[in-house]
């Protein structure tokens, strides 16, 4: 109950961001919401089910291109976003059935090359995607400030939906099945879990809102090109965020996304020429010193304190 209250307060506080009137902060807020979508989505397949998916970029790019092409064809923006969710979801169902029988590294590699294949398709299919030239989206006839607000709230809505999805999965039957699969897949099928079905469900849930976020992103920046929306960083960053916050938890991905974006901005500003290297070192250090994420540390502290109290009394 308290956790629901905290969630609502945090979302409400973020929603007041446009009142500050700072465009830089608003852009940062939109990015944060987008990172939340990616991290919360990855958490379902990577955190709960323990399948190290590198397909986030594929879902994101597919959503971005679906949205851009549909909007170019005159479909209303909002409808294009929904269609982007669905196209990413459908793609995930098919892809999941093809590669989810692979385990560990094999699955990771299979999921990784998917984005590369989509880049090639997007680059070669010039008549549909504009090829390497990229694709321009229709410009909105509203003020720049209103646009910034619109996309901020759209991304925030996607993040809230992804958060609710992540929560429902974690608290329900699906999450229980996925945790069993992560901890012992053979034993899972022996206790009656249809592992294939649950893995495909998890993979699909991890794609829906990422596709939507891709389409919102495309509408937001007005112009997309293959290497931008299929960037490998879009697959790697959410993994880092989730590991940072705590994999397989409800709040971990959000905490991770927040710490990550703060870190990214600080590094970006202060080490302009070699920010990627600094970020890389930070990531390695974090994985070494926080293997269970920030929530893991908090939990361990709490457990240690309660045993101490138990010993004292």
């Amino acid at each position, binding site marked *: 109950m308290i956790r629901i209250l905290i969630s609502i307060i945090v979302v409400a506080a973020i929603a007041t961001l446009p009142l500050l009137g700072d465009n830089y902060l608003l852009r940062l807020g939109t990015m944060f919401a987008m990172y939340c979508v990616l991290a919360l989505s990855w958490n379902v397949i990577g955190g709960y089910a323990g399948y190290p998916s590198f397909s986030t970029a594929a879902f994101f790019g597919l959503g971005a291109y679906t949205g851009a092409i549909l909007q170019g064809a005159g479909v209303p923006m909002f409808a294009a976003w929904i269609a982007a969710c669905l196209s990413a979801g459908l793609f995930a169902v098919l892809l999941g059935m093809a590669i989810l029988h692979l385990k560990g590294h094999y699955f990771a590699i299979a999921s990784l090359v998917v984005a590369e294949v989509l880049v090639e398709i997007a680059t070669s299919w010039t008549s549909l995607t504009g090829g390497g030239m990229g694709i321009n989206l229709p410009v909105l006839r509203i003020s720049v400030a209103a646009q910034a607000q619109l996309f901020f709230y759209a991304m925030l809505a996607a993040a809230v939906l992804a958060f609710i999805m992540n929560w429902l999965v974690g608290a329900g039957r699906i999450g229980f099945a996925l*945790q069993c699969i992560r901890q012992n897949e053979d034993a899972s099928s022996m206790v009656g879990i249809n592992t294939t079905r649950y893995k495909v469900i998890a993979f699909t849930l991890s794609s829906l809102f990422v596709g939507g976020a891709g389409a919102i992103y495309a509408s937001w920046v007005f112009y997309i090109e293959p290497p931008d929306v299929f960037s490998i960083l879009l697959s790697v960053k959410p993994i880092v965020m989730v590991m940072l916050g705590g994999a397989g938890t409800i709040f971990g991905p959000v905490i991770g996304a927040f710490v990550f974006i703060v870190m990214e901005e600080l590094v970006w500003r202060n080490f302009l020429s070699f920010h990627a290297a600094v970020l890389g070192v930070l990531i390695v250090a974090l994985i070494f010193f926080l293997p269970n994420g920030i929530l893991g540390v908090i939990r361990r502290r709490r457990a240690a304190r309660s045993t101490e109290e138990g010993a004292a009394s």
Partner: protein
Amino acid sequence: MSILTLQGVSRTFDGLIALDAVDLSVEKGEIVGLIGPNGAGKTTLVNVVTGALRPSAGQVIFDGTSIGGRKPYQIGRLGVARTYQVVQPFPEMTALENVMAPAVFAAGASDMETARKKAREALEFVGLADSADIIASELTLAGRKRLELAKSLAMKPKVLLLDEVNAGLNPAEIDGALELIRKIAASGVTVIIIEHLMKVVMTLCTRIVVLHHGAKIAEGTPEEISKDEQVIKAYLGKRYSQNLAGKAGGNG
């Protein structure tokens, strides 16, 4: 009517014959022992019955339906449970959560509360009620073996296949495990047990099946098996059967 029937079940691995046209019929309420030297195909037989492996040939019939080639989760839901030679817990969950999983997914508990209740009953039954909140990987080996039994029982099985549940236990723990297996059988579950400890097999089983090189070479009551020439040659050894005969003579 027999609850589990195997008709000419074979399983080959790239030409290696692991199971060779095995016929087997298990009646409701029996405790059947499955013995044989290492590599005789005992675990393969369990894997074929529980769906971990497809039979290369032959029929597996459980409770009137053919289950050969079905998926493990489907067979599990029908009421065939197993334990593994090496324990297979969900290591980061508590004992209670471990047992809730089969209650939810195999026995089809309608909600988590019901599952929790069923899981507690199963833990109670195997004597692990006090360890319900302990993380599975922190239980002792004997505890984890009991946990496996609790998980199987939470599936509401009709047939339970036990693959060397006593391996690695000390004599006192084995006595406890035997008592538990008897209790499970008494509750109406048909038990098939793979076991190397002859003491266990001889005292526990109503019938023994002997596998050698994937084929069934003998079948009968413990007494018949201990006198069977082929079984002595392939598995028991002369000294063991003489000891057994001597003891029997001494008692009589």
